């Protein structure tokens, strides 16, 4: 509670590591070049929540928020930001330099569907970009690719089984 007064700046960090800084108290204005433009968050019955910017309405949806992490759908594109104070920003930088690389990768179902085929077995060596599972959803067959080079240590699905979004399909030890 006490540190509130000391915050005069906030940073929104995108998942792709782009950084946007805003002064606090937050203004309803954004400066581009030498001009300030008004930005407004509004809502009505016909459109739901939207942002008004340069005379145009942009649809926004707040998909998720957990602590300081926000997933936002802006004009049908999703963005994930963590909002950091100058203090937490500093702490994060320190933590990041200490953290090692993940050694194991869980490949998850990107959508609900049915497993058509599993192309690897436990012990198989896989290359990054290699198809490991074929998942059918909404008439479409999707190849699920390995995100890493490594060795399959666990196969969690079988052909014909149904999976939900984010179910783990295969676990791979990164090599």
């Amino acid at each position, binding site marked *: 509670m006490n540190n509130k007064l000391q915050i005069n700046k906030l940073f929104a960090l995108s998942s792709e590591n782009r950084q946007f800084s805003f002064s606090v108290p937050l203004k309803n204005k954004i400066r581009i070049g030498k001009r300030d433009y008004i930005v407004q*968050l509004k809502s009505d019955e016909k459109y739901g929540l939207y942002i008004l910017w340069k005379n145009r309405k942009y649809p926004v949806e707040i998909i998720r928020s957990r602590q300081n992490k926000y997933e936002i759908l802006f004009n049908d*594109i999703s963005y994930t930001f963590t909002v950091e104070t100058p203090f937490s920003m500093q702490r994060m930088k320190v933590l990041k330099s200490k953290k090692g690389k993940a050694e194991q990768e869980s490949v998850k179902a990107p959508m609900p569907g049915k497993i058509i085929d599993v192309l690897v077995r436990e012990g198989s060596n896989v290359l990054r970009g290699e198809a490991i599972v074929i998942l059918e959803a909404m008439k479409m067959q999707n190849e699920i690719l390995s995100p890493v080079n490594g060795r399959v240590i666990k196969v969690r699905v079988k052909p014909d089984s149904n999976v939900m979004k984010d179910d783990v399909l295969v676990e791979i030890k990164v090599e």
Partner: protein
Amino acid sequence: MKIQKILIANRGEIAIRIMKTAQMMKIRSVAIKTAVETNAMYLSFADEVFDNSEDISEIPVFLDIEKLISIAQKTGADAVHPGYGFLAENAYFAQKCIDNNLIFIGPSPDAIYKMGNKTIARKLALKSNIPMAMGSEGNIANEEEAVAIASKIGYPVIIKAASGGGGRGMRIVRKAEEMEKMFLLASKESEKAFNDPSVFLEKYIENPKHIEFQILGDTKGNVIHLGERECSIQRKHQKLLEEAPSVALDNKLRNKMGRMAVQIAKAVNYYSAGTVEFLLDSDRNFYFMEMNTRIQVEHSVTEIITGIDLIEQQIRIANGEALKFSQEDIKIKGWAIECRINAEDVQAGFAPDPGRIEYLSMPADPYVRVDTGVQAGSAIVSSYDSMIAKLIVSGRDRKEAIKNCKMALDKVWIKGTKTTLPFFRMLVRNQKFQDGTFTTAFIEKDLDKYYLNSEYEEMLAAWLATKLFVEENLQEKSINVDFENGKEMSPWLLNKRINQF
């Protein structure tokens, strides 16, 4: 008129599309209510609704031949329109309708069968002197035979399902070592999708354009074409944007390809609406690919440039009427572009994103036509395809159509699921798309990003995230509610306002 009542053996936008024309022709229509979509929009367009929502069998009613025939009989329908997908290209279903004294609004079972079996279709095309990509004479038995044929015609080759369509059971093979795996995959996939594991082999034409011709034929033996559609903007053989006409064709080539399309249709005594698909390579050689014996999703762009209602023609032809126009009467005017707005997450490789549509608002400009089967409150269910709406935009020429499309896309407002809108917003601004030099490889090869990436938009989203953070964490009271143009900001936001520090 013979047809007085049509059973619509389909759902969604195409059911509505058919019912609108039926209504205009003063024909009654019957729609089927299913358990997965009891409040679907298409039901409200029907004169009669047959309630099948108690039926919870695994097979959707739109694929259940016996059931559909019995519904037609119970409701007193004298004709059946299959729409697209489901049983639209099932020769047995067409025959069953005829056997039960129902008019099947589509081609003859014989034409469906012959064109549906790609091996027979290839033989027919060969006999009619239609140019084709080299390939196997008939189906291939095993991977050894596939390797032998492929080494003769040269890699890359494509394995296709004999009974296939819509991209399923297709595999491109670039070298002999891949053949075994790909052969088995294609064969397994087509067995699953079409109940027929047989596959054949064809030379794979690299980076072609997908050009298809709309055909209309009557039962008196007249067949004409209504010009072409370009459908090269596709991903994994699923079309995303179609336009008519195509920049790649001049009148000479158009007439030549159109004549070939008519010729192949005549080889099976084709009647009703149909589509002959070709691949066009960079040297303007064209190759027959397949004929689709149904009304297609993208039929609307042809309707706009020719002024002909294709569903009306299907119904008239099914009634035994002769075509009222000849090839010379067909005049192409203007340009039309169709964007398929699907519930898909472009940022996650076009993964389906089913869900409930919370808000939906479509542009109402004179140059826009919207064919849709959903409204605010509708659900996009995972048991069916992911289509939300077809945004069909016209202009006097291609340039104007693209300009209009750009404006229309910015007016589409859909909330509740992610959509393909960001993809189209990027596409209409893409140089290669504007030039018209794109091929079927465009999405996979020429794009490094599948959606419009605007710096300002990301910054505005960052501003919103920061605003939410400030309101949740740093402010004691006074929420920034804007009363000027609405009631309140968001109930979600109000509920979320807990002090986390």
